[in-house]
């Protein structure tokens, strides 16, 4: 019976571990997305700045 309890406990722990791992993979995918979006925003910001400088120079 003791062995049974131990086995059950190990099973529960493993389930928690694999749920964590799955969640972590989702987080990692989201992280890549965030970094990409940051990159795009920054590029937009830079472009805007360049254009502003150009218009200022033209004036």
């Amino acid at each position: 019976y003791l062995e049974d309890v131990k086995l059950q406990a190990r099973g529960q722990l493993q389930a928690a571990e694999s749920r964590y791992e799955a969640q972590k993979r989702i987080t990692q995918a989201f992280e890549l997305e965030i970094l990409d979006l940051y990159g795009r925003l920054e590029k937009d910001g830079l472009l805007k700045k360049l254009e502003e400088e150009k218009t200022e120079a033209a004036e």
Partner: protein
Amino acid sequence: MTEDSQRNFRSVYYEKVGFRGVEEKKSLEILLKDDRLDIEKLCTFSQRFPLPSMYRALVWKVLLGILPPHHESHAQVMMYRKEQYSDVLHALRVVRFVSDATPQEPEDEVFLAIAKAMEEMVEDSVDCYWIIRCFVNQLNSKYRDSLPQLPKAFEQYLNLEDSRLLSHLKTCSAVSKLPYDLWFKRCFAGCLPESSLQRVWDKVVSGSCKILVFVAVEILLTFKIKVMALNSAEKITKFLENIPQDSSDAIVSKAIDLWHKHCGTPVHSA
């Protein structure tokens, strides 16, 4: 010297030099050798004696539930705790959360003051993260109902110890304006130096927030002459918010004695 102040002097002296600590350290080591740690006994120990610094982080982690009572699980559980810490830290960096623009709420100030003090007490950053988290959590859950009662208890015990001092505070209408947030919400973080403060937090971690009342009372008693000379609530509060640091070790020792005197000394059950 009166007998009482002599005793206080001696206990401060012994604690500093560590004579009294030898026997206590041995009995704590015996408790820590238990295969399954007895939380109740560890609580009683921490309520009675100052924790030796080398065991403080371990005992706090066990009492705050960061580590389970079973030694066998400590390594694995600590691995989970460590990973959770790095996960959160990494996530904060990804969303660039840590910036000057992050707005601050009043509760954040309490949290930050406690965190800042804790960083001085706990060396390891994973331990520190968890202890701050659980310490503040304990204030917001276990002590939620008792913390607001402390100003009243403070008045009561100050009256017992020195009614003239309390009358003076009342005459100045200072009683309601004392730095209660600093004392009872921040648990003296930023008020007392960490080396003395940790002996107070030993008691808070192990289950008593009432010790905070006696620290406040002892601060008043220690600076009685100064406080009696001040005649406005504003000046008194300002002084109490910035008390001199050099007598804080003695204040804490006396506060613990006073707390034991009024609330009894917990004894080991069996």
